[in-house]
């Protein structure tokens, strides 16, 4: 079991505002400080991981990395190794510089094809030419809700360097990736509990552009722990990673998040929570994935609330 038997003040504050402290108390019991036995082979067969990292200025980034199954391992469940040799690291992904400066790393292992996911928050304890090793602070399974099923058909060979663009306003291609997204990843950070990487999914259109620098995102009913919103309460800096599965691109955005409570929601787009959050972008990077990935879309989550156009 975990040494984490309480929540940080930010998490607690959000749980109270949502009226979900008792549920959070009950659900924190699924947290542990090692990877449970059943999840170890799961991690070892993944070809993808979501990483949450912090850059030198304190900005938070979410990244997706890929590799041949087996490139991530946890034998004891106390640490996870990620074998990406130096020459295979895509330097247009901020994560590689970030972890050299800041040891907190959030990890999410998510198998889109089976809707299974496992979340690990840890601290980098080794970074060398071979790869990295993360000591686990807390680990827990997440629920299958809101995950659209996609199966990887083919993982191509690594091709570096990749093309990448960056900017600070959301226009053109960047806008259309946001509008079409049904799967996004969010990273957040808290000085004591570390970095966190998490999944958000919905029907395409669930991300709305408020203006050229702001995205509005509904917050669906979840596990009541509010790790992400709890972090925002203390430190609003956030990272998003939005994959464009069809075109093999990743849109990574860093900025700040603010939670909006008790919003009008006549169409039930929040699934009843009436909570939204707004993400204000400071900087974005749009990159090709270093490996070409062929995905097959299977189906949407039956839990997705409706989207109002």
């Amino acid at each position, binding site marked *: 079991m975990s040494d984490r038997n309480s929540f940080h003040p930010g998490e607690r504050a959000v749980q109270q505002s949502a*009226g979900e402290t008792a549920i959070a108390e009950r659900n924190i019991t699924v947290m542990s400080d090692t990877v449970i036995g059943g999840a170890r082979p799961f991690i070892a067969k993944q070809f993808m991981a979501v990483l949450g990292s912090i850059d030198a200025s304190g900005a938070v980034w979410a990244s997706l990395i890929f590799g041949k199954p087996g490139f991530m391992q946890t034998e004891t469940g106390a640490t996870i190794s990620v074998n990406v040799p130096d020459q295979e690291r895509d330097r247009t992904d901020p994560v590689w510089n970030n972890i050299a400066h800041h040891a907190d790393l959030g990890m999410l292992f998510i198998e889109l094809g089976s809707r*299974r996911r496992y979340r690990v928050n840890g601290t980098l304890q080794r970074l060398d030419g071979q790869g990295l090793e993360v000591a686990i602070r807390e680990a827990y399974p997440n*629920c*299958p809700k809101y995950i659209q099923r996609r199966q990887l058909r083919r993982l191509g060979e690594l091709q570096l360097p990749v093309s990448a663009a960056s900017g600070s306003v959301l226009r053109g291609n960047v806008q259309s990736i946001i509008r079409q997204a049904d799967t996004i990843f969010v990273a957040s950070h808290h000085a004591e509990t570390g970095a966190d990487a998490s999944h958000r999914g919905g029907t395409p259109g669930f991300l709305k552009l408020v203006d050229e620098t702001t995205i509005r995102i509904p917050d669906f009913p979840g596990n*009541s722990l509010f790790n992400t919103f709890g972090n925002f309460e203390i430190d609003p800096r956030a990272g998003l990673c939005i994959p464009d599965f069809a075109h093999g691109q990743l849109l990574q955005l860093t900025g700040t998040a603010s939670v909006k409570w008790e919003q009008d929601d006549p169409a*039930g787009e*929040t699934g009843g929570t009436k909570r939204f959050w707004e993400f204000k972008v400071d900087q974005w990077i749009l990159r090709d994935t270093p490996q070409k990935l062929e995905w097959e879309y299977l189906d949407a989550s*039956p*839990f997705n609330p409706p989207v109002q156009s």
Partner: protein
Amino acid sequence: MSYVITAVIEHGAAVKEFHICRADGAPLPDWSPGSHIMLQFSGADGTAYESHYSLIGAAGKADSYRIAVQREEGGKGGSRILHDELGAGSVVQMSGPFDSFPLQANESSRVLLIAGGIGITPMVSMAYALSEQGRPFALHYLARQPERLVLLDELRAIPDAAIVPHVSQESGRADLVQMLGAYNEGDTFYACGPAALLQALAEAGAQQGWPSGAMRFESFGARAQADDEALTVELTLSQMTVEVQPGTSILDALIAADVFVSYDCKRGECGNCYTPVVAGQPRHRDVCLTPAMREQGMCTCVSWAAPGKLVLEL
């Protein structure tokens, strides 16, 4: 710290109300509408019991807590011990109160309270609170026989409370679709009762356009049924087979086998253990899945399956 039962009041043949105080007479923690406590006590033969009960009455400050307990012939037997062996002066252990079924503060909305039988207990404090806040509400109270409508006099004495009893023996089964009506933004209902009633409410709500977040359930009682037979559960992704005996939930058997599963409530209310079904015939006992979701999967925490093989994509 010890607690003591200070009074017992009979409500008909099957329900007893217990008043519980601290043994040292000090005040109890304030509580909020919908809260419950966990009682621990022992039978004469030394068997230990642990049961959850909603607090009844008006929430807030308290020198004593009130609970109402229906004597159940089935189940683990805690209610029989409370009814038959414990009484005024008996010492019990208590933890809580836990605010796991909170009344949301949204003053503009239409609120329905729906109770089935002894599921009335958390609704009493909600009715007091809504009345106190001046929020209009209706409390639909469903029971098979009129003598099962316990606490009715107390409910009727709450100012501005619209109490609507439905006695199925007299007027047939209540029309839940009509009771809920079409969903309007801000509407919320709170329901407590047997799983079958809550399931039927979830379905009626879905028909009337109620989003799942606007339907709040507190379920109780065992979901297992007498004719449940042992199951062989095959897991396609983990490549494991788990034998599950009646009396253990499928989810608990998977956790014990160290299978990688997610879960939260273990009461069929949250859907976090939702698992795709590859083969087999699930017997759904959750209160959270829609018919479309049930076509693809099941909640392993409370649901069971027809005898034979159940194959899960897990």
